[in-house]
């Protein structure tokens, strides 16, 4: 294994960038902040790649099975001999994959932002926040125990909050950052309770030990956690479901997804990094981390994961078809793809070839990170050009921005699942896994994949075709700087070739390679559906026409409901503002102002009136004091003479 120092440096370099740029950036590095951040990230990326290489090819495999290796471990907080919170670095296949994905996408975003954020007054602060985020995310994937992951989980939430609210002059950005923070915090409450439940029964926080104790059949811990129950559900299921609730909040699963579309208020490269490729898959990562417990001990909880994922995937795809803000379309498509990853975990089993879903989920996470961040960065380039997020302000850009156009097209083909682009391979694995385990989920997945192709090409045509090229008078600057083009090109290459990475032999639930291949006949149906979706989008959106309008009118209420995101936000507003505020908030506020504060005010008033009464005795006159003194002495004398017995 490569030296632990190198692995520890992977998250620590971005942290150093954050500290340096955060403390001194505005004063000393207002111009060079981007370069410093990017170089730091480059180092981290190279270290991640070398760590991944070391692990996958040299030291990770023992007897054909990938091991979990804890490279660093020390006790952080010791409460009593048996109870301590440790910090450590854990290396296993999903960790090295996430290391590579996070550091690489972050590097691309750093590079892209050099051009995109140029001239911002808070340029250095922006890079400091990016550093903080990258540190937290890398720390999250390296965490060796469940409490440590929770710390980094919250740090990720904070940096996401800071970056969404980066343009804090805009009220909408402030509202969006608050919303994201509150919704994910609410979910994290569940996560924390889940952690407490699991660690209470397993007597450990460490992932390796926890998983071992809760999966070995007949172990006293497993018996205890299964025996304890609340509302007829076992403590294990409660613990896992609550942990999943945290994951669902971060990964924007229905019904905790409402923050993700609003989070698009942040700068576009940030959306590419946080809300597409890395942070939002933290929930998937968490479920994958605890996957043995889910799969071996509690299939019921895994079913919840499966149905939540499948429903979110479909639900988001429908909404994505109706949105007009290009970043919101991408946000819903992200939610939909993460739904894919979730239900792929849900349909998976633990052992050997049955772990196809797990592998497919991780594979999709891997490929999705590249093509989705590419889509976001492409959208960023477009927004940079036309200064608008709305589809109607775009169209006909393919001549003006050739590189963006080609890379965007590649990403769309990848997400639509057209061979040989990367999304095809990962989606096939997921579809195969769901086909083998649950036909209903398979049908939903197939339908969603058709919808995905449709809305992605709706987006593509609306941006790059639809109108004649000369419709734009704002082509006063070109496609963007070289630093904006390089990430697009690199990510486009990866979106093409990432599907050929042999994830199946590296990342599996039980560490052994999967060798099954998918018969070509199986691929016919999904690819046909995807092509049908693309053709439909071509018919409707390639040239500007009335057809989409007419269809929208014919769909009537359904279209309206979808474009209003099925009124989920309104439901939340109703529940919080009308129900919670009136039924709980107001009585609590009344109790606080009248009873709690009232008691304190009463005490204060009593003290004040008493002191008002007696303050005259402190007159400031020496002779008065002398009089009191003599009076006191006289009183004492009388007491001593007549009352002392």
């Amino acid at each position, binding site marked *: 294994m490569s030296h632990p120092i190198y692995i520890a440096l992977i998250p620590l370099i971005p942290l150093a960038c954050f500290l340096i740029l955060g403390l001194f950036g505005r004063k000393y590095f207002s111009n060079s902040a981007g370069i410093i951040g990017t170089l730091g990230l480059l180092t981290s990326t190279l270290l991640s790649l070398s760590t991944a290489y070391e692990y996958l090819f040299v030291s990770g495999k023992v007897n054909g099975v990938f091991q979990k290796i804890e490279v660093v471990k020390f006790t952080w907080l010791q409460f009593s001999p048996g109870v301590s919170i440790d910090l450590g670095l854990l290396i296993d296949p999903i960790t090295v994959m996430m290391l590579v994905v996070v550091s690489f996408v972050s590097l691309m975003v750093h590079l892209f932002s050099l051009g995109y954020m140029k001239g911002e007054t808070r340029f250095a602060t922006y890079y400091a926040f990016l550093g903080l985020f990258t540190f937290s995310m890398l720390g999250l994937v390296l965490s060796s125990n469940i409490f440590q992951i929770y710390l980094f989980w919250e740090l990720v939430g904070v940096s996401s909050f800071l970056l969404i609210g980066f343009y804090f002059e805009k009220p909408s950005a402030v509202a969006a950052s608050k919303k994201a923070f509150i919704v994910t915090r609410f979910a994290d409450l569940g996560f924390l309770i889940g952690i407490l439940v699991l660690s209470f029964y397993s007597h450990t926080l460490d992932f390796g030990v926890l998983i071992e104790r809760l999966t070995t059949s007949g172990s006293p811990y497993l018996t205890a956690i299964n025996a304890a129950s609340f509302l007829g559900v076992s403590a294990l299921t409660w613990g896992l479901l609550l942990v999943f609730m945290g994951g669902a909040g971060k990964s924007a699963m229905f019904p905790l997804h409402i923050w993700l579309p609003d989070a698009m208020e942040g700068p576009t490269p940030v959306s590419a990094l946080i809300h597409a490729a890395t942070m939002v898959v933290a929930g998937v990562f968490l479920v994958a981390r605890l996957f043995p417990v889910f799969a071996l001990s509690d299939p019921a909880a895994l079913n919840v994961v499966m149905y939540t994922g499948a429903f979110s995937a479909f639900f988001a795809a429908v909404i994505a078809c109706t949105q007009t803000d290009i970043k919101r379309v991408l946000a819903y498509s992200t939610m939909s793809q993460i739904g894919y990853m979730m239900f792929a975990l849900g349909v998976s089993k633990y052992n050997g070839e049955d772990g196809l879903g797990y592998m497919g989920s991780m594979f999709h996470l891997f490929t999705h990170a590249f093509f989705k961040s590419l889509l976001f960065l492409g959208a960023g380039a477009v927004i940079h050009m036309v200064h608008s997020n709305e589809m109607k302000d775009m169209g006909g850009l393919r001549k003006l921005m050739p590189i963006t156009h080609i890379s965007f097209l590649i990403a769309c083909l990848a997400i639509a699942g057209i061979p040989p682009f990367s999304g095809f391979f990962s989606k096939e694995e997921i579809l195969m896994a769901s086909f083998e385990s649950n036909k209903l989920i398979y049908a939903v997945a197939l339908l969603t994949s058709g919808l995905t192709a449709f809305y992605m090409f709706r987006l593509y045509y609306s941006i790059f075709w639809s109108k004649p090229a000369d419709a734009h008078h704002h082509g006063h600057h070109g496609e963007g700087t070289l630093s904006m083009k390089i990430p697009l090109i690199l990510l486009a290459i990866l979106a093409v070739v990432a599907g050929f990475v042999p994830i199946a032999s590296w990342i599996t639930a039980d560490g052994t390679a999967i060798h099954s291949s998918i018969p070509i006949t199986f691929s016919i149906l999904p690819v046909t559906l995807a092509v049908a979706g693309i053709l439909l989008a071509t018919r409707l959106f390639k040239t500007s026409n009335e057809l989409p309008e007419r269809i929208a009118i014919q769909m009537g209420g359904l279209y309206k409901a979808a474009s209003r995101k099925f009124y989920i936000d309104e439901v939340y507003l109703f529940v919080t503002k009308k129900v919670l505020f009136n039924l709980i908030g107001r009585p609590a506020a009344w109790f606080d102002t009248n009873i709690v504060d009232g008691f304190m005010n009463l005490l204060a008033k009593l003290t004040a009136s008493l002191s008002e009464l007696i303050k005259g005795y402190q007159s400031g*006159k*020496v*002779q008065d004091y002398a009089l009191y003194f003599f009076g006191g002495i006289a009183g004492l004398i009388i007491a001593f003479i007549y009352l002392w017995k």
Partner: protein
Amino acid sequence: MSEIPLTNILFLSTGLFFIGVYGLFTRRNMITMLMSVELMLNSVNINFVAFNKYLYPEKLDGIFFSIFIITIAAAEAAVAIAIIINLYRSHHSIDVEDASEMKY
């Protein structure tokens, strides 16, 4: 020469003491107040000497005590006069009614 009874001397000292108390409470001038305090001290001295002479003529404790009191009264007068001088410097007056800022 007939002996003066002890009670007469005690009446004298009691009278002297309450003259002092009266002066302390009624005079506003600090010098006068200081003089009143001296009167009270001296009435106590008379008591000590008288009790010593009439009750324990063979002992000297009462006389020693009155010498100590005279010494302390001298020191006390020095401190009091220093205070009075400082008061005069800050307030241009030695009237105690003028120095009543230290109140609620």
